[in-house]
């Protein structure tokens, strides 16, 4: 406790000064710590050698603490003595006139007149002082900023190295590649800029881009190896150049050779090729099949399209089909639409489709779809899914505006089912009352007519036939047949499916009549005749009016059908599957990697292992993991010539494990150890004995 009230003022002020000095020392310490940590990072350089964040933080904290604890004069406990703090303060200002130091020293002695005066004056002086300008933080702040920037830059550096995938080439004795420059010129229509990469480990290019490779090498020749083969690079102005077109994923391997033909370390650049994706187009409105009894004048149309680079055009195309039977007229046109481009890659087209201009009549059909192109020269337009607009007869309308199949289960009743039901009724007839048989027969007749109607609908509506049926005439319409003579002569009815179908429909009519009369035997005969004709009709190829899109196309391979005669007597060699190329290449690479630590000379081993890595890359050029693996192998192969043995050994072990993981995943496990024959024999004997025991009464 201070003996003077004024002494408290002086003491508080000195404590404030001390606090500020501690803060300033801490700032300087943090700055020094940051600088030291950045030096550690730079010493490591490689991303995998960068010290852990915890280690860096610890470095900064330790240096800061050391700075605070030892102060300016490298003496622990400098902050404890207030007179010393006062001394430092006096050195910063002349106002103190040593009174503050004196007051600090007198703070714990007894009161006296002179001392009272000193204390009072010192209190007066400190009340007019401000520690901030006396101990400015500017210098410490600048130092701290510099330290933090250094640390941030050094932390970012490894990340940048990994991100740009550039690397320093390894130079060894003999022919060597000093630098590789790759210039990628995308196709003009893409509008993408030309890019250049120096010593890249990997490049990305748009398909059809031009790739110019320039290699600086201490060699008499340089070979460029790609997926398509190896060729010599052209020597020009002291460097080696080659140009190629990006077609598919792969690699560029530059191999320098000296005048004797001896090869140096190969430099590998992975090539990723992005293909120009065709545009996607979607007919948003009206994006469905339309069935009209009365055709509206106009329909609003909305099309959306997008592309990975830029769209070239969007339009609505339609094909109008008019006519009947097999005499159709096809008209193909476009509907004008206005395009709104949100960006070159995404367009929306809107328009109004004026249907009244088409002059559609009942039975006419319009197939419509949207089409879009991108800017790739010669690219075929991409079409959306096709929809149908059909003008139907008034009787088929079930709802306003469009027609849908209002009796979806009608397909469930087939001719085969009618036959089956008739047979069952015949079987039950002896035990049934006559009127019951008649009622059920009439129900069957209705079902038979339903089935017949389906096929009539399929044939495009045989109105004449329906009329004939209504009149009770079941013979062929000679007039209609005569009209079709010209078609027959022209070969258009070589397909006799239509005739068989007609016969089937007529047989169904006969069956229906017989069922109505409850003449089940005759009805069954007619039903079977109808079925036979149907089978003949469907056995021949038929016209399919509406083409299937690629997505809907039937995969005949998966129908598990075929001709029985083809299955007879097939024989071939026993199946001895071989491992796929990727697995074989991985195993070869594994063998070469394992042999890197022993065997031939380092150069030969490195050459062999990089060859194996390229072979592996050839099996799946698009695989990022394989490309990264090939690059790692190239690095290790280069390091094997110059690097310290333990380090190389560790990296080879790591590579072996990576390759092993890849190859083990594609192989089945070998069965475990074999059991002894006697064990099996004993088990069998035991089971036989148990079996005999079980049989014993």
């Amino acid at each position: 406790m201070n003996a003077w009230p004024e002494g408290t003022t002086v003491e508080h002020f000195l404590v404030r000064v001390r606090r500020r000095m501690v803060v300033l020392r801490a700032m300087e310490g943090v700055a020094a710590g940051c600088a030291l940590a950045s030096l550690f990072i730079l010493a490591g350089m490689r991303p995998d050698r960068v010290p852990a964040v915890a280690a860096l933080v610890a470095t900064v904290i330790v240096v800061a603490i050391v700075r605070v604890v030892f102060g300016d004069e490298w003496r622990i406990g400098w902050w404890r003595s207030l007179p010393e703090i006062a001394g430092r303060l006096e050195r910063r200002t002349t106002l103190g006139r040593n009174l503050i130091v004196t007051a600090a020293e007198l703070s714990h002695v007894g009161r006296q007149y002179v001392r009272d005066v000193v204390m009072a004056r010192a209190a007066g002086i400190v009340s007019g002082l401000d520690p901030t300008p006396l101990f400015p933080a500017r210098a410490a702040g600048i130092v701290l900023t510099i330290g933090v920037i250094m640390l941030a830059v050094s932390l970012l550096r490894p990340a940048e190295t990994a991100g740009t995938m550039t690397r320093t080439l390894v130079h060894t004795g003999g022919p060597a590649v000093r630098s590789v420059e790759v210039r990628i010129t995308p196709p003009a229509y893409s509008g993408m800029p030309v890019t250049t990469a120096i010593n890249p480990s990997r490049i990305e290019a748009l398909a059809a881009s031009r790739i110019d490779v320039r290699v600086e090498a201490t060699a008499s020749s340089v070979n460029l190896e790609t997926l398509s083969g190896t060729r010599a690079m052209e020597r020009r102005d002291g460097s080696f150049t080659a140009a190629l077109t990006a077609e598919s994923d792969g690699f560029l391997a530059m191999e320098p050779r000296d005048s004797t033909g001896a090869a140096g370390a190969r430099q590998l650049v992975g090539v990723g090729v992005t293909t120009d994706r065709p545009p996607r187009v979607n007919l948003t409105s009206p994006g469905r099949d339309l069935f009209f009894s009365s055709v509206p004048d106009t329909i609003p149309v909305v099309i959306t399209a997008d592309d990975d680079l830029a769209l070239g055009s969007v339009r609505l195309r339609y094909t109008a089909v008019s006519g009947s039977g097999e005499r159709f007229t096809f008209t193909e046109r476009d509907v004008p639409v206005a395009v709104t481009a949100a960006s070159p890659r995404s367009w929306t087209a809107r328009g109004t489709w004026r249907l009244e201009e088409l002059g559609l009549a009942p039975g006419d059909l319009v197939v419509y779809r949207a089409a879009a192109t991108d800017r790739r020269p010669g690219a075929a337009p991409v079409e959306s899914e096709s929809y149908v607009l059909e003008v139907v007869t008034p009787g088929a309308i079930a709802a306003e505006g469009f027609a849908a199949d209002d009796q979806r289960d009608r397909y469930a009743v087939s001719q085969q089912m009618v036959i089956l039901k008739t047979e069952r009724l015949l079987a039950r007839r002896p035990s049934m009352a006559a009127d019951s048989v008649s009622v059920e027969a009439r129900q069957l007749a209705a079902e038979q007519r339903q089935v017949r109607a389906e096929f009539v609908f399929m044939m495009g509506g045989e109105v004449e036939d329906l009329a004939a049926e209504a009149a009770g005439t079941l013979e062929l319409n000679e007039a209609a047949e005569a009209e079709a003579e010209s078609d027959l002569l022209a070969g258009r009815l070589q397909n006799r499916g239509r005739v068989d179908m007609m016969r089937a429909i007529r047989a169904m009519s006969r069956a229906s009549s017989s069922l109505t009369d409850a003449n089940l035997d005759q009805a069954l005969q007619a039903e079977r005749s109808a079925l036979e004709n149907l089978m003949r009709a469907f056995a021949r190829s038929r016209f399919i009016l509406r083409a299937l899109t690629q997505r809907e196309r039937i995969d005949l391979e998966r129908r598990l059908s075929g001709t029985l005669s083809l299955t007879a007597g097939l024989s071939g060699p026993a199946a001895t599957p071989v491992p796929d190329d990727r697995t074989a290449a991985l195993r070869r690479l594994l063998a070469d990697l394992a042999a890197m630590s022993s065997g031939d000379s380092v150069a030969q081993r490195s050459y062999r292992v990089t060859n194996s890595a390229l072979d592996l890359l050839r099996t799946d050029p698009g695989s990022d993991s394989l490309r990264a693996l090939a690059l790692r192998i190239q690095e290790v192969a280069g390091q094997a010539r110059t690097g310290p043995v333990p380090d190389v050994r560790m990296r080879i072990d790591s590579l072996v494990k990576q390759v092993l993981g890849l190859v083990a995943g594609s192989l089945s496990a070998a069965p475990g150890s074999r059991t002894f024959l006697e064990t099996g024999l004993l088990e069998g004997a035991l089971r036989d004995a148990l079996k005999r025991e079980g049989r014993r009464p």
Partner: protein
Amino acid sequence: MMMTALRAAALVIAVLAVADPALTSTRRARPLVAIVAADPVKDALLSDRVARELDRRFTVVRGAFEGASGTVLAGDAMPDEWSQLTAPLMAVVPTSPTPSVRFAMLDAPATSPLNARVPVSAGVMVIGARGRRFDVQLKRDDVVVDHRSEIISSDSAMLRVPLVHVPTMEGTTSLRAVAVINGTSIADSASTAVDAGDRRFDVLFFDPRASWLSTFVRRAVEGDTRFTVTHRVVTSRGVSNTAGAAPVSLRDEQVLDGFETIVVGAPEQLTESDAAGLDAYMRRRGGRVVLLMDRRGAGPVDRLTGVTNWRASRLPVAAQPDDADGGNGLRAQEIAWPVTTPAGASLHSVSIGRDSSRRAVVWSISVGAGRLLVSGALDAWHYRDRATSGFDSFWTTMIAELSANAPPVVDVAVSQRSLAPGETGHVRVTVRDAMLSNRAERAASVAALLVTEGDSTMVRLWPEATPGAFSGTIVAPQRPGTYRLIVSSGSEFAEAPIVVDPAALAPLRDDRNLVEAFVSSRGGTVVQETELSQLPGLLSATFQTVSRVETWHPMRSAWWIVPFALLLGAEWWWRRRRGQA
């Protein structure tokens, strides 16, 4: 006088020597104790310590000896010659330092298809290293090919470490597993060898009628590089599709001999003669048969399965029966299972009923030396999506396991595939036809050679009590390298690789419990290494004091020549001193 006495004494010796008198006496016998090291290399020091301790009171012999009064086992594992150990038996088990790590097992198949990954299972005993990290590396030619690391959670643990090796070329690969407790120099290693070759399992698919289930199982097997697949599918009467030299029927077991496994689709269509042929194939050849049922129907095949009462069920949804083998199993909606599971059947896939009963869907039984596997997953072929069902992997794994266990004509097995120079290994050879024949008189002859480049050594094999079984001992040559043990029987032969490596260490099983039980069953006790001084006392207490009457011929000792010569020499010296001639 002196001269006469000396001369007389020499004469007495000469006369007694000519007479060769026989004496009879009763003696207390010095017991003969055999010392057997559980592992000749690892337990050599312990074995020496035991010998030194016993040498004062017993006559010690190294190795198992039937004439010994008793045996002391040095080590904590059962030795290969355990059956020859003479009772009473005592054991001295080593005291493990703390912490310690030791390979108790390193299991890998002796042979592997080239196009397969080889699972290597290591069993490591770790004591007193709780909370520490533990690393196991698998090395090939000093290159680490696989590595596992884990933290030990108990004071004493037997850790099973799965490792993988991929053969890169045909031939023998020496593998070394190294286990280390991190941060210490405490380590142990064990070696083994795997022989890889382009050997494939010959599998026959035989479908008496076209079966989707069999077809899809065949397609899975045909896509696996471990197999060569021959098939016959009878598509109609007298019409069939074949691949390879598929037999017309299964009735002739001789024709089926070349196949390790026969897979039968639509087994209910098999004829009596087919079933009889398959039965003979399993009993005489030790072959494996898989019956793939896609519908349930009675037939001659029931004679093979021994099951006549079946139940079938259609589950509400396709379910994945529990895979008893722990893999990703089959899915099926229609299943059939035997009402009573045959005795001794192994269950590979079971379905749990509503009443918690276990229904054997896929099961196998022994038939003679062979094995019959029956699948009641009738519609499993519907569910082949790899994301939800292990259809392909289940069948390829199952058929590979079955095929691998089908015995070859001549089979050779060695106790250790990796030996140190001079180390002893045991060989066992079985000749299938002699062992499985049902004839009264069976004969087999074998010859074995240990071969390396430009050199070969004959290995003597001795017949065992079981017809067709032979065994022998090999001593690893001094020169390191890869040797092949070639065993021939008639025109057939089999090979086993043996790697001689100075650093080879066999895993030492930790059979303390087994050793304790075995020793106590033979009237002995287990002594810790630290209590070795008690062993002579314990042994003496165990042995009965044997006094025996012995007839001996004292004059037959060659040492009589010494006093005889001395007496004559002294007589001559005395005579010369006295000035006599």
